[in-house]
């Protein structure tokens, strides 16, 4: 008699892989060495510094020796379509990136304490080994994290405001409306850039991230990433959201709009703009009218980071 799916999975997915004695011995030997030389230098940090350090580490995007992405390259990118149907996709599933929303919005908790908890946990399990320094008054960035991997120095920066990072890197996304109207930074404000070498004046990978909020009922998050990995095989599944659609901004950029409703009744809306080598995601959490959302989308000047739209 055939089993049920649950029985088949329970009885098939069993732990039978045994680590070699040599591997276990290596761990035991290394553990002894680590008692003498700790991997990370322990420092006493003020809580805000802990959060900033963690943000730098958590967002540390790592560099290979591949091409450099200057602002000109970003401008040349075309938008690509990404919404797809899960059932059809699964029939041809590969290593493709899938855009599911990890945050289901069960609770919209704006408390800072949760962020701190997660960052401490991250530090404990991170394999980051490097130095963290604070910026001077002449720097737009406030914190810098450096790590040496495979002979390359990889540098991550934290800026007090995301607009400072965009300004520093000649990225034309306009955050003036958001920063004026949603002023309170919600989580670790961070953006982070990486270079092939410290002397480079253009980043080879970039990850920019910030969240803002107004009171306890509205939050706006921005994430912008550029890399040399193509997004052409990415998908956003219609079924993963309550609704999907598009919106074309005043400067001609088409955003993919998806939304979910949280148990609390709040709506979480994501505006995706994905180009060949970059991802821009703006997340609205809380009570935003359609009109208010459109004002935000239109304010961003997204045509500055892709070919589509009015230049």
């Amino acid at each position, binding site marked *: *008699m*055939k*089993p*049920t*799916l649950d029985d*088949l*999975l*329970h*009885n*098939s*997915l*069993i*732990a*039978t*892989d*045994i*680590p070699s004695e040599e*591997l*276990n011995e*290596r*761990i*035991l030997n*290394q*553990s*002894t060495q*680590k*008692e003498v030389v*700790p*991997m*990370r230098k322990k420092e006493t940090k003020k809580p805000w510094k802990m959060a900033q350090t963690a943000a730098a580490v958590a967002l540390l*995007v*790592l*560099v*290979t020796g*591949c091409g450099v992405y200057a602002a000109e390259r970003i401008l040349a990118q075309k938008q690509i379509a990404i919404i797809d149907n*899960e059932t059809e996709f*699964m029939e041809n*599933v590969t290593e*493709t990136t*899938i855009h*599911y929303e*990890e*945050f*289901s*919005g*069960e*609770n919209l908790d704006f408390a800072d304490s949760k962020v701190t908890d*997660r960052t401490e*946990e*991250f530090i*404990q*399990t*991170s*394999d980051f080994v490097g130095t963290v320094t604070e910026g001077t008054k002449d720097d737009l960035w406030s914190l810098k994290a450096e790590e040496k*991997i495979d002979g390359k120095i990889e540098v991550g920066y934290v800026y007090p405001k995301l607009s400072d990072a965009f300004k520093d890197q000649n990225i034309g996304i306009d955050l003036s409306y958001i920063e004026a109207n949603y002023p309170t930074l919600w989580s670790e404000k961070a953006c982070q850039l990486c270079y092939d070498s410290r002397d480079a004046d253009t980043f080879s*990978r970039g990850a920019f991230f910030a969240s803002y909020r107004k009171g306890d009922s509205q939050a706006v998050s921005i994430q912008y990433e550029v*890399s*040399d*990995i193509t997004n052409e095989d990415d998908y956003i599944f219609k079924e993963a959201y309550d609704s999907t659609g598009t919106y074309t901004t005043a400067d001609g950029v088409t955003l993919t709009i998806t939304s979910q409703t949280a*148990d609390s009744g709040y709506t979480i809306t994501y505006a995706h703009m994905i180009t060949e080598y970059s991802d821009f995601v703006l997340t609205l959490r809380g009570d935003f009218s359609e009109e208010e959302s459109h004002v935000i989308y239109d304010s961003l000047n997204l045509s500055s980071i892709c070919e589509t739209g009015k230049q």
Partner: protein
Amino acid sequence: MNKQLLEHYIEAYGTDIYSFCIRLTQNREQAEELYQDTFLAMCEKEDWKEEGNVKSYLLGITIKLWQNRKRKFAWRKRIAAEIPISKEQGLEAFSADENLEQHMVSKEEQEAVWKAVYKLPEQLRIVILLYYMEDFKVAEIAEKLSLSISNVKSKLMRARRYLKQELEDFII
């Protein structure tokens, strides 16, 4: 943490953690590195005290390390071809102490199950591994992956739906 205690944990949980690493990474070299770093990260905890489920704690470290590392692997776009573990060893090894219940699952069935599980996107595969291989409750998975319970349920549902299609010849 002293060496004897670490040895005890490796003895007690090594197979579980290593199997999880293998199935998660699908690559022996990465699995060994992840397995090693999991135990070393545990050693680094200066004020280690055994509280609660140690295996669950170790799997939590494994997941965090892997998620962190995945970013690196993705960004580095490794040049060397990675051989999936299923091709590397053919999934032939059965443990000597497999029980009667496990005997009821044929080699063909087990291979089909792993093949289907490997096809799942990682976000779904990790949930399936924790639920079926490590016997985690939905709430535990949610905690380990920093997801909401409803999100984990949704992922389980999606994964099952796909596995059901893939394994329809083997199930009721």
